[in-house]
Structures are given as C-alpha cells and as structure tokens.
C-alpha cells in the first residue's frame, strides 16, 4: 500500500502534524472522507511524487473494511452504476479488492483512494485556513461537514 498526499497537503497541515496526537495520515484520512462523500477524484498531477506511509497506522487498522466499503460506494455512485446492476457491482468490487492486502484494496483501489483524498483536500482547503492547532482543525472540520449553507457532498 502506498499512500500519497496532495502536493500542498504537507504545507497546509504543517502546523498541526504532531505524532502520535495528529498524524500525517489523519490529515490524509480527513481529506479522503471529504472526497469520497463528494464523489470527486483529483488528478495524478495533484499528487506529491513520494509515498508518505506504506500501511494503515495502528489507529486505523480496524477501519480497513469500512474504508474499502466507502470506496466501493463512492465508485458505484461516481460511475453511475445502477443499484440493480448486480454484475457491474460485483465487477467493480473485484476490480478494487485484494484479499491478501491488509487494507483489503489492491493497487487500483489504492490509487483511487489517493485521488479521492487529493480532491477532498481541495474541498477542505476552500473552506478553511491552514490550522494552527489540532482543536482549531477539529472545530473547522466539523463545520465543513455541517455547513448549513453549502452542505458537503455532491
């Protein structure tokens, strides 16, 4: 598994990255949730050249099935696959799933995850300043999800 950040991600979050309280992966994950929910992918050009971590950190190991599920859910919606189209749904899942991977996803799934995270970063960046403290970020991120004027999600 290779997780890659949006090229401006490191700078944006640099005030609050403080392992183990707030990991680089936490930043990635927050962007990912936003991107998946909005069903938008970014482009490979938006990404940094290097991988920042190779596996789910301990705090996230229990969420691997859920995150894989959210990815499938996002892809089905983004591609407009009909809910009754059993064969396509199954095909889509097989395309992304790798039973031997600790993240449940294969290379293709991994790549998509990074693209969703990149798109999610752009969405978040629009709605808040680079956070100076973790608590500031938590409040702002919560506001992003509960914005009454412009609800997040497509």
């Amino acid at each position, binding site marked *: 598994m290779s997780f890659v950040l949006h090229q401006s991600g490191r700078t944006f979050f640099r005030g609050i990255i403080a392992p183990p309280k707030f990991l680089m992966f936490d930043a990635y994950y927050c962007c990912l949730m936003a991107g998946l929910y909005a069903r938008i992918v970014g482009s490979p050009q938006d990404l940094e050249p290097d991988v920042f971590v190779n596996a789910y950190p301990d705090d996230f190991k229990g969420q691997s099935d*859920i995150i894989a599920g959210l990815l499938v859910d996002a892809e089905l919606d983004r591609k407009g696959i009909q809910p009754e189209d*059993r064969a396509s749904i199954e095909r889509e899942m*097989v395309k992304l799933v790798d039973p031997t991977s600790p993240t449940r996803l294969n290379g293709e799934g991994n790549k998509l995850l990074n693209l969703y995270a990149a798109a999610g970063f752009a969405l978040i960046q629009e709605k808040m300043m680079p956070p100076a403290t973790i608590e500031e970020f938590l409040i702002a991120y919560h506001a992003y999800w509960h914005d009454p004027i412009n609800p997040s999600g497509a």
Partner: protein
Amino acid sequence: MDLRVLGWRYENIRGGLRDVSISLDSSPGRWTLIQMPNGTGKTTTMSLLRAVFSGEALTPQEVYDLRATDITETGLFELRMSINNKPFRIQLRLDFKNRTHQYWTARSEVRSGGLEEGLSLPPELKRLLSRDFTRLFVFDGELAKEIRTVGKDRAANAIRILYRLDQLDMLNVKVDRLVEEQQQRSAAISTATERKGVTRWKRQYETVITRRTALWAEQKELQKRRKEMESRRITVVALISGRIDQDEALRKRKEQLERERQTIDLSLLEATHQGMSSLRVPAKIHPGIQQRLVALGGKLTHLKLPKTISVEFFKELAEQHDCVCGRPVTEPIKRAILERAENYLAEDQILVINQMKAALRESSADSEEFTRVATQLASILRQLRLNKMAHDQLELERVEAGDTELENLRHENQQLERDLDTNAQKIEKLTTRDPARQRALSASSENNIPLCDIEVKRCQEKLATATDTLRFVLQSECVKSLVSKISGLAQLRLTERVRIATNEKLAQIVPSESLSVSRIAGALELESRQLSSKTGVSEGQSLAVAYAFLTSLLTEAPYKLPFIVDSPAVSLDTAVRRDVGDLIPELFDQMIMFVISSEREGFADAFYQREGVRYITLWRDGKDVTQARDGLEYFRSFHQREGAE
C-alpha cells in the same frame, strides 16, 4: 593505557622549593593527600605538572618567574611516572639566566636508561595530552565554569578527544587530501580545453563552498540569537509576574486565573483527545456517512452479493467424473463449465466482500458524538480566550496605575514575540527541506542550506567529471559519510552515557539540590528550571558538577589517568565535602590532592579511616625553605600547630 605518578622533585623553584622530593614510589598509595599551605607553591606545582605532561612551551617570562631567588641560575622540575608499568622520567630543565627551558626524557626501555632530549612519550599518550586535555586530570578550577560555557565546546571536545573520535575527523581530512591530490594529478595531464573546464568548475565549486560556510555561520548565529531571546522571554515573563505580585489584590486574581488556566488546559487536552477518537471512526463524522454504509450493505445483501458459489467450486466440478446433476462430465461439458467459472469470484474474494458486508451492516455509531465534542471544544477555546484577556487585564491595570516598568516589560515581551517570529521565519527559509515550503519562501541555493548542499554536490560531481575523478570522488564521499555517521552515533551515545553517569553522581553528591545535566551539546547544560535567574550556579554547585562530569568522563575512558586536584573541597560546604570525600576517591586508581589545613574538616578526615593513604606535609621553615614530612600524625598535628601560630 595506564598512567601513574610515582613522584616528583624540585630544584630551585620558587615558593621555597629549593630541594624537595615527593616520592609516592613502589606501588603508589591509591590516595595521596599533600598538605601545602598557601604560599608554598601549590599553584606552581600544578602548573609544572601540567607542563611536563603536555610538553608545553613556556615563554621566557614564565621560565624566569619560576626562579627560587634572583641569584639562582638553573632550576629543575622532574616528574617520575609509570606508563603501563614502565618507568618514565621527565625533566623540565630551566635556565633562569637565559630564560630558556628544555624537556628531557628517560625511558627504561632505552638501553642506557639515560636521558634523551625532548619529550618522548608513547605516541598515543602524546596525542592525548594536549594542553587543554591536561587541565582535565590535573584539574584546573577555572575549568569548572568553562565546561558549562555555551560557545566553548569544552565538554563535548573532552569526550571526543578522550574517546579518540577526533581521530576519525583526521581520517576524513585525509580522505579529502587524497581527493585533492588525485584531482591535481589528473589536472596535470589534461589538455588546455580540459583544463579550462576544470578551472571553471573548480572556481564554481569554491564559490558554492564559501557560500555554504557563510550559510552555516548564519544558521549558528540565528540559533544562538533564538536561544538568547527565548531565555530572555522566560525572564521577562517571570518579571512581569513578579510586578503583578507587588499588588496583593492583583496577585490573588492572578493566582486564581492561573488555577483556572490549568483546569482549562486539562479539559482542552481531554476534549481534543476525544475529538481525535471520534474523528478516526468514519461513521462518527457525519450521519450521511453512516447512512451510506448501511445502504451499501443492504444493497449487497439484497442483490445476494457476492454469489456464494465460488470459481473453485466450478473448477473442482470440471475435474469430477460426474456432475452434481448426475450427468457425466465430458470434454465439451468440462470446457463449458470452466468458461462459466470465469464469471464467478474466487473464494478469498468472496470472503473479503463478506467481511466488508458484515462491517457495513454492523457499522453503528453515535453520529452526534463529533458534534458534541466540536461544540465543547469551541466553548473551551472561548474560556481560554477570556482567561488570557483577564490575565492581560491584570497587566493593563498595573500599567494604568503607573507601573512603567511593567509597561516596558510588556513592550519588550511583545517585541520579543515579534522577533522570535521573524527569527523562526529566517531559520525556516535557511533550513527547510520541504520543496513546497522552499517554493513558497523563494528559497534557493543562495539562501537555503539543503538546496546549497545539492548545488555543492552538483559542482563537485561536475568538477570530478572534468578531472576524470568522478568515481574516486563518489567513493570518497561514501567513505566520509559512513565515517561521519559512525563518529556521530558513537559521540551521541558516549555523551549520553557520560551525561547519565554525571547525573547519577550529582544525585549522590548534592542530593538536596536536584542538579542535573540536561544535555551535553558542546557545553554541559544544566536543567534550566533549577537555575534561579538571580544567582545562577553557586561555586559549590559548579564544582560539584565539574567533579561529577570529570569523574564520569575519566573513569570510564580507555585510559587510566591519575586525578590531581588542588584544594578540591575548599569551596564546598561541609555536607558536600563529606559526600565528595566519600565518593570521588573511590572512582580513581590514583588520586593526588593538595589540601590546605581548613580542608581537613569534612574532607581530609574522611580519609583517616581508609587504608593505603599517603599523607605528606609541606611547609616553609624559618629560612624560607620548604620542608617535607611524611605521615598521618604530622599531617593532623600540623593543622593544630598552624592554628597555634
């Protein structure tokens, strides 16, 4: 390597040391106490000992100052020692008339055992016994302060030298010289065009190196300035607090606010921690996420996905004699079955999707939790803001009441904050490796060290190619890098080892004062919280730290050196004297202490119970000539006699 002092003698040295011989011979006692009242040449003796160990060059004036009287023409100081059990004699011959001096050595292994001109110690020892190093074990009291002086890297250097890491620096210097030679050789046989290319790259390389050195200096300066400002900031904040305390009512409010602040900080920590826990569960972020998870799970179930029959089932079936329906499995049927199998999932894929389905269905979370935490955090931050404003208000009230000093301190604090910010920005521009930040700050190889390093490397490689020495240069860099890493790692661990040992000893010598070394970067740095801003470190504390450090350094080193000290306990209070007297001597194989009568109490008397201690007393008689006498009784009673005078 084991070095022991066997004795020394003086001829015509000042302080009445006309003809005195100190002998610690034939298995020198482990501890020797030499009582020398002030004015009997203690300082002179320490200087002479240092000189003969290091072969120090004396100035004509220094030579002349050692004379016993104005009419003595020559003088001598001779040290006898054993090095790995082989006897050595070093003489410092003084010519007072001409103000010159010479060292002579007698080594047992030289057949005649006679004296040779010059200082002939084993090369390893010679390398070790530099002037600076000698002051460590022929202990110079001034050193106690120096090892703590930031900027003078005495402590770290002592470690480097003692553990021979400086030799690894020499190795790298040698590598650089070999590269230079190689490049010169190549340059010598190149054509004119090639030489032009070489010159061009050489110049560029030198320019970049110079620039880099300047950037390093800038970094050092910025860091130093930063430390100073941070230190000043701590002082200013304390002073401001002090000014508020002048007003009883304000002080009470301040303390109340500080108590509140602590509570707020604690609840902030807890709430943030909880916030992170909530955040890390997708379903807790927003109810919509939970809905989608459940919906997908439902969808999969509804569509009866995944199909429970796996591809393996079909593959196995194709191998059977008869199908499950009873009919025989012929070749065409086998082919058809295998073709169809392609449409089915493998068993492990089915497993994964089932796991996913289960997780989706089971997913449940309190989707209001995150909102609760966010609200709580906002409230706590508000409280924090109010608390800070109230604290600020205290300061403003004092200013209003006419406390100009506080006003000045406030301005200074604000200015320091601004300056620290600017300093941080400058340091970031100078040192950041992050490409995104480098772009944002317009960093280039002109003003950023990592980028400059890259440029240095580039020029180096260009130069190397031009001189056809690229391969050799790369190999050399590889070797230098490994040697540096090794040296750095060893130094780090050694320093830590010495630091911990020092703190252990400090805890034993001055347990009540909780002095401890926080780190040894260049100088030995003490924990700042223990230093009162007014008094700094007392002389006694300073000595205790020095002893703890030196004994840790010297006792665990690959060399066994004697520890020679002048008035080890005179600045220490009685309790500390006792502890020093009990502890330090245990750590050395040989210790020679010059004491004055007032040091008996608490320090020297700790030795009376020990075995194997030598007591020597020196004093100046009526004719102003120094006499020496051996033995404990005289040592003790001399004390009384002096008191009676």
